[in-house]
């Protein structure tokens, strides 16, 4: 059955070794983890850096900022409604299982 897939390449461990599979996998994972770790560290340090920046360059409350604040409020309200809707749906589902 295995040879139905591909005949021209080596299979099994030889196939992995011929294509330097372990090397590619190791380097690939290293790059992914390193990139996301650096992003994670950047995100963790960002509030501290912005706190310093806030003293020099305070965030102004202009109409775009107001729009952003309004957007955030609307987004929060939508989250609350979504959460309520999900709880109600779960309760209705549970009730219908009991009835069945």
């Amino acid at each position, binding site marked *: 059955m*295995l*040879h*139905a*897939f*591909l*005949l*021209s*390449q*080596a*299979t*099994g*461990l030889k*196939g*992995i070794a*011929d*294509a*330097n*599979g*372990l090397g*590619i*996998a190791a*380097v*690939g*994972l290293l*790059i*992914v*983890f*390193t*990139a*996301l*770790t*650096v*992003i*994670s*560290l*950047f*995100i*963790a340090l*960002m*509030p501290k850096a*912005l706190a310093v*920046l806030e003293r020099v360059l305070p*965030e102004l409350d202009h109409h*775009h*900022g107001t*729009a*952003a604040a309004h*957007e*955030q409020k609307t*987004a929060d309200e939508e*989250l609350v409604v979504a*959460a309520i809707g*999900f709880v109600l749906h*779960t309760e209705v589902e549970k009730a219908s299982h009991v009835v069945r």
Partner: protein
Amino acid sequence: MDLLTNFAQTTGFATLSIGNVIMILIGIAFISLAIIKDYEPLLLVPIGFGAVVGNIPTIAGMPVSVYDEGSVLSYVYFGVKEGIFPPLIFLGIGAMTDFSTMLSNPKLVLLGAAAQIGIFATLLGALALGFDAKESGAIGIIGGADGPTAIFLAAKLAPGLLGAIAIAAYSYMALVPVIQPPIMKLLTTRKERLIRMKPPRQVSRRERIIFPIAAFLICALFAPGSIVLIGMLFLGNLLKESTVTERLAQTARTAMIDIVTILLGFSVGASTAAQTFLTGQSIGIFALGALSFAIATASGVLFAKFMNLFLTEKINPLIGAAGVSAVPDSARVVQMVGQKEDPHNFLLMHAMAPNVAGVIGSAVAAGMLWSVLVK
């Protein structure tokens, strides 16, 4: 009589093969799953109908299919084949993604990285099955659970397998609610599933604006091959978060992404002609796809448990499964599994952090594989 015979020869009935019939039935099955079961309808309806269209036999000399130069379908398929559509979809995804849960708890980004182990484990599995390096890289990306990324990398590395890889990726994304829960329950204890996490903090507007620019620079410098996908993702996000380009963000996450999704889904479906799709290789790709999702889920959960060894504020390990970047389905699965144990434990917002981190991780992995394997 000869005229009738000649006419009969030009109809699709004359050259319809069993393979075509099977693929047409598969296309109809996709449409049925989408409409009746609501499984990823935005993708499965165009893909399913495209599979039906792509398996009607054509007459020699009449350019109709995606593989016939000069046909209308080939012009639509051009966007898939040349990797144009996936970055446009990422633009829309960026414009609709909220990274604030990730920004409020940065350690959860690592769960998105851990889930990408599925990509590289699948790459090794594909090599073991006899696929060459480029094909294995394209198959491995199925483990990223990201349709546009899978199509983009397959178009660059293994265009001949693009149909099978795309169908496998989208099929398993639709089956995330079926594949993930058993693995999540197997790898966690009840006590772990009951862990409640602190609510995410409020994230400032400045953070949400600076993040896409900085994250793009970090990812692009580590993996230049990810420039296109990551660049469009974070451009879309910046359009959204800056609030000064709301019109562009609105278009990107609505009309534009919908148009591209229709064209991409339909042309990918139409590319699954029986003679190119129904092969032993496709069976291998589907088997590897299932394995990739399972390994990605397990990796995310196990990495969360590993992190808990060093953390005072524990992570609910279920959210590790959301590192599989099927946004937002895998986050919803985490919510569902968590609520089965404790109906008052709301994990959805926490799960969104590794979920969106997984999108970044899979794009970086794709960029890395493209850089290394394209030579």
